[in-house]
């Protein structure tokens, strides 16, 4: 009897490899190439007259001046402290988002029933409105004579209108949560919806309370989804600059994205802005590396 052939693509099958080609080309054209340009600007110089960047295309001739300047300020200077603030904001906002998103996703997935479609549509609805538009709406709501103060005064929680927009960190963090939480609910929902109910039934049959079944079955099963959703919202949050620009406008709540914005749109020292972009990307790559490692570990644990 013949050995069963392992189900794997045969060598030299150009058709299957060809399927990956558009994706690879896309990645090269719109990610690797621009990233190389950013590197060439960060390691390049500026035109002495117009002060516009002069990218240095030859890596052997790269100048490290802008990087040295950036690293000096990143470790123990103003960039470093802004970066720590950004990290804190993102960490708090992500944690709060998870606290909000998980129960919502869980509810829709488990108890949505025939309303599931409607609930999902409701969750996606915020995507129809531009992020900036939603933030501008919040500015009006949070103003001294805005509805938020009106309601809080009417209910009696506040005695006098509070200036929510006076540059406080809490407004920025809540703005981030509000802006990014839908992006977290959807992947969580997609995963929780797929959890095999028979596993929960087995847990209950074996004597687990509903809470124990959640803690010992659902939660460990959803670790990869939690990690993925954290990555999905944390990465763009690190580059966010407009939330704080709109809801605070105070230097004390500026994020690393604001410094990048300042150096890149402010002209003159665009290589410094590019170097900051590269540093941020390196950090995010580390974060992503940890994500890949943690997911692999979680999968192994679930597999065994």
């Amino acid at each position, binding site marked *: 009897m013949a050995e069963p052939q392992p189900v794997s693509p045969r060598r030299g099958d150009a058709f299957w490899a060809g399927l990956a080609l558009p994706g690879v080309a896309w990645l090269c054209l719109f990610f690797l190439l621009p990233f190389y340009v950013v590197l060439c600007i960060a390691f390049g110089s500026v035109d002495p007259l117009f*002060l*516009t960047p002069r990218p240095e295309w030859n890596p052997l001739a790269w100048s490290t001046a802008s990087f040295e300047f950036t690293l000096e300020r990143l470790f123990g200077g103003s960039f470093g402290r802004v970066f720590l603030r950004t990290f804190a904001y993102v960490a708090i906002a992500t944690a709060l988002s998870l606290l909000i998103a998980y129960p919502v996703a869980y509810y829709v997935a488990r108890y949505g029933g025939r309303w599931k479609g409607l609930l999902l549509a409701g969750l996606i609805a915020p995507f129809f409105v531009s992020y900036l538009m939603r933030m501008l709406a919040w500015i009006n709501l949070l103003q001294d004579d805005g509805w938020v103060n009106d309601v809080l005064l009417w209910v009696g929680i506040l005695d006098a209108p509070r200036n929510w927009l006076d540059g406080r960190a809490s407004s920025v963090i809540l703005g981030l949560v509000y802006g990014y939480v839908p992006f977290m609910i959807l992947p969580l929902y997609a995963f929780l919806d797929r959890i095999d109910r028979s596993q929960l039934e087995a847990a209950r049959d074996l004597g687990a309370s509903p809470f124990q079944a959640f803690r010992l079955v659902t939660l460990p099963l959803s670790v990869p989804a939690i990690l993925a959703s954290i990555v999905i919202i944390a990465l763009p949050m690190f580059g966010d600059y407009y939330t704080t620009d709109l809801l605070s406008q105070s230097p004390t709540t500026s994020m690393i994205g604001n410094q990048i914005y300042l150096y890149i749109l402010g002209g003159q020292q665009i290589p410094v802005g590019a170097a900051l972009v590269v540093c941020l990307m390196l950090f995010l790559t580390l974060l992503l590396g940890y994500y890949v490692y943690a997911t692999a570990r979680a999968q192994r644990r679930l597999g065994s």
Partner: protein
Amino acid sequence: MVTFHPREPRYGRREFIGRSAGGVLALSSLGPLLAACGGGNGGDAAELVLARPDNPVTWPLYDDNPAIASGLEPEKGPLKIYNWNGYLWPRIKKDFGQEYGVNVEETFFSTMDEAIAKISSGAVEYDVFIPVPDRLGRLVVGKVLQPLNHEYLPNLQNAWPSVQDPWYDKGSLYSAPYLMWTTGIGYRTDKVKTTPADLSNPYEIYWDEANKGKTYLLDDGRDAPAHMLLKNGIEDINTEDPEHIEHAKRELESLIPAVNVKTSTDDYTNLPEGRAWVHQMWSGSAISAQWYLPEGLTSEVLGFWFPEDGKGTIGNDLMAIPRTAKNPVLAHHFLDYLLDVKHGYDNFANYVGYQPPLTALDPDRLVTDEVVAPHLTTAIVRESDFDTGYFLTELSQSGQVAWQNAWAEFKAGVG
């Protein structure tokens, strides 16, 4: 380092539609970054002279960059204008197009640096460009602009005599004046306890703790520190002295514990809508602010302080014609069209809110015409201001870098 400009939109109410959320960072940071690649036109940085009111400059004319000949027929267009958003009344374009039988197209830039990067790369071709004096030298030496042929500009004589022959471009060889403004302090008369004029040093209003959380500086890396320098009696707001720069930075940083100062260029909405009670403000914004007042408030609640002796920050915009213009004759006609008193006035009064420096434009008429509220006459720029005011001028590269770094450190909010 002009990071922002009076008419620069950031997330203004008018422009938010069309900006999508996720793409904002990617688009706005990578766009200029990539557009900025590409060299200059071979200009020599060593030739750059830093023009100052006490060091007026006559820019050289180059053999390989001549002005157009006199007596040519205007081209068939389309006339391409490169301008700040909201800085030209659309009706002007329509009327001019009808008069000359051409289409007029306007493209917007959002920072002067972006505009210079694009225009100096030679990759874009515009017929009319609106630069600022503190970049004019670089544009001339880099041969980005072509000299003007005054035969086509009879209306230049409508401008104040001083701006016909300004220190930044003696003889107006490469530029014609467009609009003028001053930078003063806007405040809400119904909210503040002390107005700038009540103080022996009006700039100290920024430190008034009664306005905590309601005090704004312009989000501009040179305009904001200029007021810090003036507060300390340093009249050379173009100083490159490291001690002065450090001092201005410390003054800025001291505003954080005092009033948790904020920065914005939406001065024309922040003040009328009540987010700000004290706002460093461009005069054109002070004039426009009345249109943004919520219902029930009259323009009486708006105040604008500018030094009575005219010794405050002043600035202007120019009109110029790029060397690569496809329609240079038509472009000259357009410049002349805007220098016409009626067109200049209409553009200002109906739309822009920033004032053209035209002799026939009687400041008192602005009040009777209800363009400017009677108690906001301080926002009107007078010809004498051009001589007494302090201009933010072109800096050396190291000066620009030093100011930018100081501003970035203030904006980091960690000082």
